[in-house]
């Protein structure tokens, strides 16, 4: 287990080096000159433009820019944004909000997805199974921004039940609607997934054996059916936690949340290499940690899986 952990953690190093290099290359390849764009259509003073290029190392080849970034990041110096703020401050403001939002969406989709999936799966063919089926198909097929705009209009603008947009230092109520919108598609997928797993596991030999041994119904359901059915759900949830961070952008735009998605989007528009790379690197790290956590969780759910 220890060796396995160490190996997985060491794998992070080439992943981070590779992603930062790739992102730097992509930002560098973006058409247009970020310094000219700063002048916003006003006459460009070349002497000033040269000063700014030198300040942000934009006059150097991208490999050199990348090496400078790596060197500085060893001392936790990620440089400044074009607006003159330390990158670390910008990242530090954006991530807590998105993590909060992502985790709320995660909890929402996990709890409701599994509950509805179980209800559906254990009661196949009943009327509420059909209702859940139709609703989940609807959520999967309607794009997130449509769900978002519709909910925002009715709950926010029309009925004044929930805040229309999110204020600074958002609390639980502020983020409730965005989190539901963000988690809705995954919730529907989890309902489908757990329902299918449960219906197929009910018919398994070991379930029949357990019943034949005279185990109580609840004990069969919880210990044999649900436990086995949840393995693919956990995989899905683990992979989804990272995707929620990245996919938060649509929710963030609709509800005006100043999180990672919005910050990243604007950094790309401005061609701010260091900011883009810093944000993406952190997202990669979150993704790596989440998938490691999921892999470890398998062992808990399925005793056949062992890590040497």
């Amino acid at each position, binding site marked *: 287990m220890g060796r396995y952990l160490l190996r997985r953690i060491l794998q992070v190093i080439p992943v981070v080096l590779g992603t930062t290099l790739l992102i730097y290359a992509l930002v560098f390849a973006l058409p*247009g000159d970020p310094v000219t764009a700063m002048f916003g259509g006003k006459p460009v003073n070349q002497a000033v433009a040269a000063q700014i290029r030198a300040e942000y190392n934009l006059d150097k080849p991208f490999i050199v820019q990348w090496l400078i970034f790596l060197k500085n990041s060893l001392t936790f110096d990620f440089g400044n944004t074009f607006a003159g703020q330390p990158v670390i401050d910008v990242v530090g403001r954006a991530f807590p909000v998105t993590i909060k939002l992502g985790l709320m969406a995660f909890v929402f989709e996990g709890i409701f997805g599994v509950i509805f999936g179980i209800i559906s799966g254990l009661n196949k063919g009943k009327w509420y199974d059909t209702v859940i089926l139709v609703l989940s198909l609807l959520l999967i097929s309607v794009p997130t921004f449509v769900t978002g705009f519709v909910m925002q209009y009715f709950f926010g603008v029309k009925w004044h039940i929930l805040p229309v947009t999110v204020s600074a230092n958002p609390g*639980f109520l502020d983020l409730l609607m965005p989190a539901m919108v963000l988690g809705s598609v995954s919730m529907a997928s989890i309902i489908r997934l757990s329902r299918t797993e449960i219906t197929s596991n009910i018919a398994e030999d070991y379930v029949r054996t357990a019943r034949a041994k005279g185990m109580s119904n609840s004990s069969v359901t919880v210990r044999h059916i649900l436990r086995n059915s949840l393995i693919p759900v956990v995989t899905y949830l683990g992979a989804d936690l990272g995707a929620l961070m990245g996919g938060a952008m649509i929710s963030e735009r*609709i509800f005006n949340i100043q999180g990672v998605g919005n910050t990243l989007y604007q950094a790309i528009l401005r061609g701010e290499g260091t900011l883009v790379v810093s944000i993406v690197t952190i997202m990669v790290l979150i993704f790596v940690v989440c998938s490691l956590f999921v892999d470890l969780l398998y062992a808990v759910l399925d005793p056949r899986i062992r890590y040497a």
Partner: protein
Amino acid sequence: MKKKALAIAAAACAAAMLLSGCGSSSNNNASAESNIITVNGCEPAKPLVPSNTVETCGGDPISEMFSNLVRFDDKGNAQNEVAESITANDDMTQYTIKLKDWKFSDGTTVKAENFTKAWSWAANAKNAQLGSSFFNVIKGYDDLQKSGLKGDEQLSGLKVVDDKTFTVDLNEPSSTFPILVGYAAFAPLADSFFKDPKAFGNKPVTNGPYTFQSWDHNQFIKLLKNKDYKGTATVNNDGLTFKVYTDTEAAYKDVQAGNLDAMDTVAQSAIKTFKTDSSVQAVESAGSVLQYFIFPADMQYFAQGDKAGLLRRQAISMAVNRQQIIDKIGNGTNTPAVDFTAPVIPGYSDSLKGNEYLKYNKEKAKAAWDEANKISPIPSDYVFKISYNADGGGKDTYDAIANSIKNTLGINAEATPIPTFSEFNNTIEKRQIKNAFRQAWQPDYPSPDSYLKSLYSSGAADGNGSNNGDYKNAKFDSLLSQAASAKTTDEANKYFQQAEEQLLADMPSVPLWYANAKGVAAKGVKNFKMNWQNVPIYEELSKK
């Protein structure tokens, strides 16, 4: 054992997730009693230093916090603000400026030195200010663009006479200088700025209608009414809060719900409905932004100085059915252009000689095109192209323009997109576009000068300014310099109108329409109207 530990860790983790979501809910209606106005804003691209701010995110708060020598009223006329008087010498090359007795928000007096040092600092290339080129009219500017500067060298054209008086020597005569100094970059800076410019940018010392209260990055910029303000602006509220929105759709919904008092634009989804939307107050009026497209001066078959080229340029202009395109695609929220400036700019005229070339006329367009072909025929497979940037939502409009040209003249015409604005600008800068291309202009100060000199003078051509078509005409240039040496604004405007008539005779570009200024305010907000810059007059808004 290990399994159990992991399970506990997982449970703890889930609990933490839930808790992190349950922070305190913030309060939205704290300011119900006070008369603080909240408007939509965006995160400034630079610290709040006037000469380094060339975009509206920082520009809007800055123009509410700083008072220059002059301030523009709603109509765009310059009124003396900090200046007691601005007097020119006979040939308009030297100005003597006397100041009123004003104070900065830190209690220090606004002295002549606060202007001269601020302007020199802004012009000095070492300080890398984005607005530095606005100071190129002042003598000594070129000396401050060399390498090896320390950053505190002064413009040689600025001389302090006493605490309340200074003189400005210009490189050439300019009657518009007293208007130019109303542009944000010309704000005075308090002594504390020069000690620590960085700290100032996060917490500016101001002298305008509002003082700085706080800047919560990516969330709010809060300003408070300056009780000692004695300038020309009327301040009807107790403070202004610029709330950061990354999407106008979200801001519009907040206005509808009454959470946001006013916004300076309208969400794309509401363009058709905002004027009839009963949950908001709407404002729409002709604005100062001019949309046009330009012919490069050496464009094949359309070149300047060539009779056939001129006829073809006129034919293209008369082939664009502006009103129809505005009605069908712009939802009627633009006004067809009849000149090269805009209706809200002092000096505008709707009766310039030759402005019939800016009106749709199928017969005349066709006749001019055929006449050009008699002089020098154009190949029958010629395709007239207009390039535009695809990220600004121009597709429908430019396709319609191309179709209008196609149908009127019976030639092939197409709109060719370039993916992003930034890439589009780069290709223009490198002069790589050999066909017509889209342009838009928002003036920096309310004078025809801000359009004509920036966009069509020889001095702004060849990459030295925004004359992206490299149009050059000595007669036009001399009319501009006559306007520059004029004694009064009215006299100057006469020369500007003659210069515009020269443009109508040469057609270096095709003015399309003035973008209407559009905005919405929540119910119950009073005095909601737009200024010459298409921005609501924030200081006059009130909830009482």
